[in-house]
Structure formats: C-alpha cells, structure tokens
C-alpha cells in the first residue's frame, strides 16, 4: 500500500513542479507510458485478487518501462523502431485489456 501512496505523492509533486524531460528521452515516452499503464492495471488486478505486493509492483513497473524504452531504442538503432514500437504496443495492449477485463469482473461481477 505504501507504494501506491508514494506513487500518488509523486504524481501530485510532478503536476505541481512540472519537471522537464530531457530531449533525448522524448522518443521513448509514449511507449514508457503504455508500459507504466500495463504495470498499473496489473497492480490493481493483483490488489483485487488479494495478492498485491509493493515490491513486485514497483519492480514490474520499472522493468516494464525500461524494457519497453530499451526495445524502442534498439529498434531505432536497427532501423525498425516503428515496427518494434507496434509490437510492444500490441503485447502491452492485450495485457492491459485482459487485466482490465479481470478488474471489471472483480468490480461488477460481470
């Protein structure tokens, strides 16, 4: 639970402080945000399943974001950046959908 509180505090601080992202990191932001969304949906589902764990959540969040950005970076270097971005978005999108469906079942029993 402490991770969720920390995350909320961080988001609020970010909205207040408006930090700037270095220009070199800009291309990886969209994919990183999608990866973060995936981790968040996974965390919410785990919470509803009753198996949520702070450590697992944070590590999955960070590793998702870093791996997604790394894949895009690699793709850019190899000249297949857009294709690899699509692959990442497809995989993460399916996971987000299935987690969202699970959350929905938990909340609405339907």
């Amino acid at each position, binding site marked *: 639970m402490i991770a969720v509180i920390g995350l909320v505090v961080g988001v609020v601080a970010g909205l207040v402080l*408006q930090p700037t992202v270095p220009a070199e990191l800009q291309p990886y932001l969209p994919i990183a945000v999608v990866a973060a969304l995936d981790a968040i949906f996974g965390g919410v589902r785990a919470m509803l399943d009753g198996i949520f764990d702070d450590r697992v959540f944070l590590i999955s969040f960070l590793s998702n974001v870093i791996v997604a950005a790394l894949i895009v970076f690699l793709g850019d270097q190899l000249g297949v950046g857009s294709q690899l971005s699509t692959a990442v978005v497809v995989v993460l999108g399916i996971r987000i959908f299935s987690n969202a469906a699970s959350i929905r079942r938990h909340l609405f029993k339907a």
Partner: protein
Amino acid sequence: MTTRHSTTPPAGRRPDASMTLLNEVYSSSLDEGYALAAARRAAGTGPRQYTARRAVVLVVAVGVGLASSAAAIALHQPTAAAQEARELLEKSIVERNEEAAALQEEVTALSAQLAALQAALVGSGSTALREAAAEGAVEAGQLPVTGPGLRVELADAPAADPDAGDDDARVQDVDLQIVVNGLWSSGAEAIAINGQRVTSTTAIRSAGSAVLVDLVPLSGPYRVEALGNPVDLQTGLARDTAGQLLTALRTTYGIGVDISRQDSLSLPGAGQVTLRYAVVPEDALPQELRPTPAAEPSTDAPAGDDVGSDDGTSEFSLDASARVGDAPVVAVSSGEARVAGSAQHAAAAARKPSGDVREPGEGRS
C-alpha cells in the same frame, strides 16, 4: 483417412498450439511475481517488513510517480511548442506592422518636408506655380486631403466563412476596382480604401483571401472613401456600371453595401510616388531607327542641353513630385479629366522633360 488428416490432435499437443503466442500473452497478463510473492507470504518465507525497506519502496514509488507525470506532461509539449511558435509569429507580425506604420509616418513627414522645401524654392513670387504644384501633389495622392465626399462601405456576406473558400460571398479585388473606377469617373478627386490612398499607380488585387491595396493587406469591411461633391458622386456611381455591380452584390451575394454622404472625410497621403519607366537599349533598335550621331539628338528635348546628353538617363531619374509639377494640366476634377490626368502622368514619365515648363528647383532633384 490417414492419420495425417485426422481431426483429433496427437496426444500431448494442445488443439490451439498454433496460437501459443497469443495465449501466452493473454493468460499471463498478470505478473507472476504477485502470485509467487503471495505464495511466499502464505508459506511464511517472505522477506520481513523492515522500516528501511518500506522507506526505499516509498522513495522509489515517489520517483516513479514523478517520472510518470513528467512523461505525461512532456507528451503534451508538442501542442505547447506549436502554440509558442504561433505566438512568436503573431508577435513578429505585430512588430513588423508597427515598423511599417512608423516608416509610413516617416514617409508622410518627409513628403510634407519636401513639399515645404519645394514651396520655398518656388518662392513667394510665383504663387500660381506653387499652387499648381500643390494641386498636382494632391492630385497625385501625395498629400493628405480633407473635405466632403462619399463613403461606400462593402462588407463580406454574414454567412461567409473565411475558411470555407466561398469567394462569391466575399468582397473581391474586382469589386473594389470597379467601385474605385466608378468613383473616379463620377468626379472623385481623391480616393482611399481603409485609409490607404489610391493613386494613379495603385494596384488593387487579391492574394488568397486578402485584398491588397498597394501591397498592404486589408480586411473587411472595406471603406472606400472618395472626396468630391457627394451628390454628384452618388448619382454618378448609380449611373455607372459600379452601381449595377453594387446592386448585384447586395441582392445576389448578400454582400453588405452601405453608401453614405460624409460632410468631412480626411484621407491620408500616399507619400512619394515613384514612377517607373522603360527604355529600349540603343543597340536593340533596328539599324534604320538608330539615331545618327550627326542628327539632332531628340526632337522633344530642344532645351535639354543643361540636363544631360541624349542617352537620357540622368533626366529620367527625376522623382514624381517634379513630374507632377511638369504636367501642364493639373486642375483635374472631372472624370474625363482624371483619366486624362493619369494619361498625362504616364506621358510625362515616358517623355523627356521639356525645358519650357520646368520649375527652378527641378533640375537639382
């Protein structure tokens, strides 16, 4: 049927084996770490919850949250950058407009100065000459003028969407040209459109959806102000083709047309008007047309010895104020005379100045 075509899968192979990738993605959508951690907790082998560990988790979570919101804000940046560029362009437009207005003011001040100097050169002796020069300057649109006149206001049709590209509902350059020509032929002595003086060299044309008068973009409603007898102007305009055009604009296209007599209009001056001309290079002429060195250099410049040789470049560089002074007929107030006056300006530009009507100061310009 052979086993090859059997519909039952071989033992040990799943029926959806060809979709393992999708199945894998779909079924393992939840990180396995959660289940493993839960199992460890249930077994009592999970790591103990130390305070330091909680602090690390909190710090990392705050950092991750901060980074996430920073990323989300940064993803909005492109629109902010576009807005910035737009504001920069707007600021640049305003600045340049102000610069142009300042330069125009300078032109007006300098032409007033020029007129004063010209008057001083002419001297108090020749009042008629000075008046003629002043009248010519007014006629050429150099000096600001005030007086009664007619105002024709044209406004785009109310439904006209500036982005829709419906040209018929907008006031176009042709409309303004016809109205201006109608006012000239009705006896207008000076005309300005939205404060932009119309002279004999003014071009009214459109570029995109904007109407340019002397390269200055104007936006509607367009106020065409003409100095002259208001009653004469109004009746003249109604008889002219411009009157028919205005009626058609109002009834067919819904363009707002408002004609009003004004007791006092004040039109700005256009500043110095530079007349341009072209000459045929001598070597481009056919042999029989080339002037022979022994012959009289030019028939229409009999007294031109003091202004230069017959190659004719120095005397052609006289500016328009001197040119206006040259024109023998400067009292132009009727439509026909206006046309004649314009023609005379052109003729004066095309002709070498003859010595008989030159002012004392002219040769020094």
